[in-house]
C-alpha cells in the first residue's frame, strides 16, 4: 500500500474512533442486541470492528450510559442494550459538541469547498 494511503487510513481510523461512541449511543435510543446494533451501524455507513463493539458496550454500561438485560429471542438468549437516562443526557451534550466541532471545521475549511 502506498505511504499516502497508509497514512490516510491511520488518520481516518483515528477520526472515526471518537465518533463511534456517539454513533453507538445514538443507535441505542432504540433497544438492540450486539449483532443488530452492528448491522444498523454498518447500514448507516459506520462499520465497527466486531471485536471492539462488545467491550465498548460493556464500558459504556459500566459508566452508567447504557442498561442491559438478557432476554430470549428466536429461541436464544441475547443481551439487549439501551440508552439509560444518564446516557440520554450525555448523548444530548455530545451531539451539541459534535455539531459545534462540525461547524468550526466547516468555517475553517470554507475556502477549500
Amino acid at each position: 500500500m502506498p505511504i499516502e494511503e497508509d497514512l490516510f487510513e491511520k488518520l481516518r481510523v483515528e477520526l472515526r474512533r471518537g465518533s463511534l461512541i456517539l454513533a453507538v449511543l445514538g443507535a441505542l435510543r432504540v433497544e438492540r442486541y450486539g449483532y443488530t446494533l452492528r448491522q444498523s451501524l454498518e447500514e448507516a455507513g459506520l462499520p465497527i470492528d466486531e471485536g471492539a463493539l462488545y467491550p465498548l458496550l460493556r464500558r459504556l454500561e459500566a459508566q452508567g450510559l447504557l442498561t442491559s438485560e438478557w432476554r430470549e429471542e428466536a429461541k436464544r438468549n441475547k443481551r439487549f442494550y439501551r440508552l439509560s437516562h444518564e446516557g440520554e443526557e450525555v448523548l444530548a451534550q455530545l451531539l451539541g459538541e459534535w455539531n459545534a466541532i462540525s461547524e468550526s471545521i466547516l468555517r475553517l475549511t470554507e475556502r477549500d469547498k
Partner: protein
Amino acid sequence: MDLIDRYLHAVRWALPAAKADDIIAELRDDLVTRKEDREEALGRPLAKDEVSALLKEFGHPLIVAARYRPQQWLIGPDVFPFYLFVMRIMVLIIVGIDVAVGVARAVFSDQAPLQVLAQTWGSVWMSLLINLAIVTLVFAVMERSGFPAEHLRKWRPEQLPDIRDKRKSQWESMFEIAAGLVFILWWTGVIQFPFRSAGPDFRIEPAPVIFQLYWPILAVTAARLVQNLIEWLRPRWKAVRGALAVLTTVAGLGVLALIYQAGHWATIVSTGMPADKVAELDKALNLGLKIAIIVVGVIWVFQCLQVLWQLVRERRG
C-alpha cells in the same frame, strides 16, 4: 470440537474470570447468529474454511479478550514521557558508573585491556537489563495508581531550569557523579579493584595519614557527590548550590591541607628491590602524589569560584 467452541475457549482463557461466562455467552450468540445469517444467504452450511474466515474477521482471541480489560497498556501515553526521562537518567548513571569502574580497572589492575573491555561491556548490559526491568515495573505500578495526575496538578513553570543556567554537559555531570559513587563504594569496601599495589620486588603501602583521615575523606566525597547531583538535577536550588560549593571546597581544602602537611603519602616497601632504587621510586611516587594533591586543590577552588560567579550573575540578571 467445533471451531467456534475452540475460538471461544481461547478467548475465555484471557478474560477476567469474574465476567468470563457472561462475555462468552454474548460472543457465542453473536458468532452463531452471524454464521446462521451467512448460511441462510448461501442456502447451505458453511464449510470449515468459511467458519475459519468468519472467526478471523472477528479478531485474534488475545486481542478480543484484552479489550475487556480495564488496563489496555503497561505504561500509557501520560506516564510514558516521565518513564522515558527517568530511563535516560538511569542509562547515563549506569553507563557512567560501569565505564568509570572499567577505566579504573584498566589503569590500576593487572588485567589485560581486552579482558577489562569485555567485562565492562557485559557489566553495562547486565546492569541495564536489570535496571530497565525495575524502572519499567515501578512505572507500570505508577500507571495503575493514577500517576501523573497529582504531579501535573502541582508542577509550576517557575520550577523549570533557567535558560541562563549554564549547566554542565550530561556526560560531564554523569562522569563526576559516577566517579564519586565508585570512589565511595571502593573507599567503604563495598567494591574492590585488583589494584596493582605491588611489583615483582616491591609493594606500595599508604601512609598512616590516609587511614587517620578515613571519615573526613568519606564525608567530603559524599558532600561533593550530593553537590554534583544537585548541580545536575536541581539547578534552581541556587542557595543550596552556593552553600554546598563553599562548604565542600572549604572542607575539601581542609582535608587536602592535612594530607599535604603529612609530606609523605605512600611508602615503597622492598621485597627484593635494591635500597637505592626503592628510595628513588619512593621519591618519584610521592612527588607525583604531591602534584596531584595541589592540582585537585586548585581544581576545587576554581570550580567553587565558577559556581559562585554563576550564582552572582544570575542574581544580578
